[in-house]
């Protein structure tokens, strides 16, 4: 049990945060994706491949919601804890292994992403789209959340002030939300840029979740791509906590 006690501690801390800020977290998770669905799905009524555009949109919006939910749960919070509250100091000082702190953050962030994505899935249930979301979809969404939680850790350690995380969000997360196989297929993007965007984690997630939703065979190589991102971001996070001289 001691082997993972640090992870349990971080999950406990995040759970307390979730309970405390339940309404704020829930509202923040709902607003943007609901707007996307209402405006692009129901407001601008179009179709794609002979089906309502909403059907294409839902898997993309759920994917980007897990991305936003996970990234936001970790990046800004950890940044504030590190630079302003200095609460992160206590973690460094404590005997809890820092890899467990990183793993706990990633796991908690992934769960927060799943919660946000789950809310959207719950809200679209009455629409009766016939889209399929199974255990594999959830696994992919959880992995997507883990990737962006790990990215959130990296960004929060790179941030030099309070504004750096929102700035990163504006420059990287928001463009990804729009371009990565969410609102339209990456097939429509010109060569060169297409390959780059297709290789991004959200593009992989959206593609796999959409394939499953449409009952098509999913190309699961995307899971390997997501795992690679996760390992890279997690390794950078571990480098920071163990090797960076001035945290």
């Amino acid at each position, binding site marked *: 049990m*001691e082997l993972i*006690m*640090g992870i*349990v*501690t971080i999950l*406990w*801390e995040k759970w*307390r*945060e979730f309970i*405390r*800020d339940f309404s704020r977290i829930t509202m923040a998770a709902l607003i943007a994706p609901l707007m996307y669905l209402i405006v692009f799905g129901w407001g601008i009524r179009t179709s794609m491949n002979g089906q309502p555009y909403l059907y294409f949109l839902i898997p993309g919006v759920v994917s980007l919601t897990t991305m936003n939910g996970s990234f936001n749960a970790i990046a800004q919070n950890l940044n504030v*804890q590190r630079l302003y*509250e*200095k*609460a992160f*100091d*206590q*973690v*460094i*000082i*404590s*005997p*809890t*292994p*820092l890899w467990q702190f990183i793993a706990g953050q990633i796991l908690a962030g992934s769960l927060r992403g799943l919660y946000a994505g789950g809310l959207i899935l719950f809200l679209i249930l009455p629409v009766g789209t016939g889209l399929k979301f199974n255990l594999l979809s959830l696994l992919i969404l959880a992995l997507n959340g883990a990737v962006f939680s790990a990215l959130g850790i990296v960004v929060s350690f790179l941030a030099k002030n309070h504004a750096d995380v929102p700035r990163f969000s504006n420059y990287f997360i928001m463009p990804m939300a729009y371009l990565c196989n969410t609102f339209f297929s990456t097939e429509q993007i010109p060569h060169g840029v297409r390959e780059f965007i297709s290789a991004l984690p959200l593009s992989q997630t959206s593609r796999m979740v959409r394939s499953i939703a449409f009952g098509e065979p999913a190309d699961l190589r995307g899971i390997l791509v997501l795992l690679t991102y996760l390992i890279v971001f997690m390794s950078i996070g571990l480098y920071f*906590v*163990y*090797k*960076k*001289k*001035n*945290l």
Partner: protein
Amino acid sequence: MIELKNLTKTFDNFTAVDSLNLKIETGEFFGLLGPNGAGKTTTIGMLSTLLLPSSGEIYIDGELLTRKRQDIKQKVSVITQEYSMRQDMNMDEIMEYQGRLYYMPVRQIRQKTEELLAFAELTRHRKKTIRKLSGGMKRKLMVCRALLTDPQILLLDEPTAGMDAISRRQMWNLLRKLNEQGLTILLTTHYIEEAQSLCGRVALMNDGTLQEIDTPTHLIERLGAYAVDEMQTDGVHSHYFHQREDAISFLSHLEGQCTLRDTTLEDVFIEQIGKRLSQ
């Protein structure tokens, strides 16, 4: 035992701590004194692994301290200069989080939290979030949090900053008692009187280097145990004497307002560090 060997910390081109060598014995109450920017907080930062040394090593009970050494970190508690706590948590949550980070069973955390909060007279504020507490309350809570885990070594960086006089005296009594029970304490403070009252040995630090290490009594005796303050138009000038008779004799030749008193550690500090700074 805490041992610092050639400990150096540089930030870009600035050397905050320069080849620091220091041994603090188990059970000692040791004070680190120095003006702002002397390197005291940086030293505590390295001892708590918040900062990693640019060169040199830290040994705790003969073992090299690194961020990976859980066994060593388990022995140490730190009260940092800043209020290092989540602002949205309440006191109970702060204590539970700390206990969990140190692998304490939840039942034990809750039991010790009761005792410590009662001791610090914080019980009725326990459900308040940290952002709603006064500076003094936060400081007391940090002490409770540090003691929760039964440390063997306590690092205190300006622990009484922001406390009123009564709370400060209470804190002194507590620290004295803890030290008597065998806790090794390293204290940095701006209150020289605090160091004189509490510490068995003190080190005077300036520009990242150690200037003097000794007991407060020896440092005072070296300067002269008796001080004569002479009021002059440009301020007070202090003169130090080893013998009381010499001080009285000097005093009898002075005209104008002057006083004879015991030399304090603050006098040593001003003579050693203050004069260097003003040069």
